[in-house]
């Protein structure tokens, strides 16, 4: 798939030199493929994530999660989230095999019963542990998951960005569309506006404090999701990110979730 994307990118670039008029869809797809290309090859990564949930009254609650990811050739990533907080969920783990258009596969480990349960991934738009992030917001990004349409260039703060409209191609998304500001220099999102199925503005996600790892992969230290319809927000703070730590398939098998 990656070679195919590369190939299509080359073809698109050739086309772009031959013809001057590219469609908005072609430009949008080019940007997505460039984003994908620039991040390929991270192999595996670990990180600590803190989620700060704030409700409309300003009450806060906290989640801390250990995240592990494995990059798959020709498929979506495998991701493992191990909860540290809230303490009643300690060691509860969620394992996800992401796919571009097919349904994801997901297992949850319930430490009280030592039980691993396969769960449905139909619920894309449901909230993840009571946060403003839904399951689809946290599932791994793949080029094929969306169709793209370039809108225009715009300065977001001091960053020069493309604005691209993403329309989910996978089933059961909670969004009619997303409007994304892609940084022209690092090819990473700076802001995404989420529109619900009625096409009303639902949420805005902003990305802050990007760091570069292994001279290649850009990751934000901080992400902020604001729900415009409820006034609630969730902030994600990342720390101790490491790449190429030597994770393999065996670290992402339901049977190994039991600890």
């Amino acid at each position, binding site marked *: 798939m990656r070679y195919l994307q590369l190939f299509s990118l080359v073809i698109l670039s050739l086309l772009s030199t031959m013809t001057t008029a590219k469609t908005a869809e072609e430009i949008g797809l080019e940007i997505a493929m460039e984003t994908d290309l620039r991040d390929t090859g991270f192999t595996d990564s670990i990180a600590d994530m803190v989620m700060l949930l704030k409700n409309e009254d300003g009450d806060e609650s906290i989640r801390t999660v250990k995240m592990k990811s494995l990059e798959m050739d020709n498929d979506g990533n495998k991701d493992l989230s191990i909860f540290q907080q809230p303490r009643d*969920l300690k060691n509860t783990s969620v394992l996800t095999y992401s796919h571009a258009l097919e349904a994801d596969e997901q297992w949850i480990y319930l430490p009280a019963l030592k039980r691993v349960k396969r769960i449905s991934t*139909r619920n894309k738009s449901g909230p993840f542990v009571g946060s403003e992030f839904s399951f689809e917001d946290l599932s791994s990004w793949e080029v094929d998951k969306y169709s793209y349409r370039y809108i225009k260039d715009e300065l977001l703060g001091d960053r020069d960005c493309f604005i691209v409209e993403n329309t989910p191609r996978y089933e059961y998304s909670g969004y009619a569309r997303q409007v994304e500001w892609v940084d022209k220099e690092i090819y990473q999102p700076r802001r995404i506006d989420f529109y619900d199925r009625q096409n009303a503005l639902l949420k805005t996600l902003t990305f802050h404090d990007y760091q570069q790892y292994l001279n290649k992969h850009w990751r934000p230290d901080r992400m902020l999701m604001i729900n415009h319809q409820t006034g609630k927000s969730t902030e994600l703070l990342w720390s101790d990110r490491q790449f190429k730590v030597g994770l393999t398939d065996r670290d992402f098998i339901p049977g190994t979730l039991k600890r």
Partner: protein
Amino acid sequence: MLIRWLLLSFALGFNPCQAESEMSNIDVSGYIGLDLRWFVEGSELLGQSNQSLHPSVEFKPEFQYYWNNENDSLKLTPYLRYDAFDDNRQYFDIREAFWLHRFKNTDLRIGVAEVFWGVTESRHLVNIINQVDNIEDIDEEDRLGQSMINLNWFSSDLGTFEFYVLPGFRERRLTNQDGRLRIDELPVSQGEAVYESSLKQAHIDAAFRWSYILGEWDIGLSQFYGTSREARFEAENNPFGPPKKLIPHYDIIHQTGIDLQWTHDSWLWKLEAINRIGNDETFQALVAGFEYAFYGIFDSDIDLSVLSEYLWDNRSQQAPLTPFDNDVFTGLRLALNDEKNTEILLGSIIDVENQASLISLEAGRRIMDSWKVSIDSRIFVNVTEKNRALNAMKNDSFINIQMAYYF
């Protein structure tokens, strides 16, 4: 502090190359809960306490120590229950105490541990490694620690292979004559258990499981050989009159199990089945059903799931007693998906032949960051002598409220 020191020295003993380890780390977690269990009706059996309100405390800390880049770990999980009135529920156990070593594609675990196999909700047929703690609850989800040598081999092509050597059989925990939720009108004399194996509790059991993921299918096949976790209860031979107590008989069994789940869209289709050979009898049992979820009902974040399972068992009257020979389980699970993780599960298992029903409610909600309140209830309806396995419990419907602090 002592435990921390013990864990550390234990760990160092296992690891002569401590200097090489890149990370090491101690993790302490667990909970302490205050329970109030209320038996709604008075007791009826001879010798049974008439105390209806039972306050108790539950303490389950977990100590985990990692080293060698988390490839080695030690885990210790003591368990304490102390009931103000019921001495059956004044109990200490080691639920886990094991060393786990991760090789490239293999996990080796030595010590006392807990293992869960299976997919269904109403009954856990294939789940056989650990003995049941029938005093904590009657849903067979509370289990005693089992000593084992366990090797799990992971292959991306062939699936997961689990091997168990299980020395040290443990008797099922059953309530004494004075306690509620007894299994029979006659008390069980646990000290006098009879074993088919001449080695009695020293018989070494063995188990194996293969599990495989094939797209939307999760498949498990298992085999167990050893002392049955379920006992047959036989009335004593009393030469001077009617029997006054039951003697547990633990047979040597061969049990083959299969568990299957098909996960498609909002559907989970589940099946567990066993074939058991023991005490000159072969019988089969099955649980099969589905769970269907309505996500985001009424434009909210709330998920409502409908569950139904059919339970069938063709064992004879001479085999260990089960209430689930021909029963239907139906349930509703409500998940609010709020920041308090509020969940409610309401279910009932109804006997198709005599309508005896076991209704259960399990609800939980986090309060503040570290506290959780849970309500559990088991209610017996229409239970008569026709339902031998539940008849002695028919007056023991209860509601349990727990406030737990997690650390």
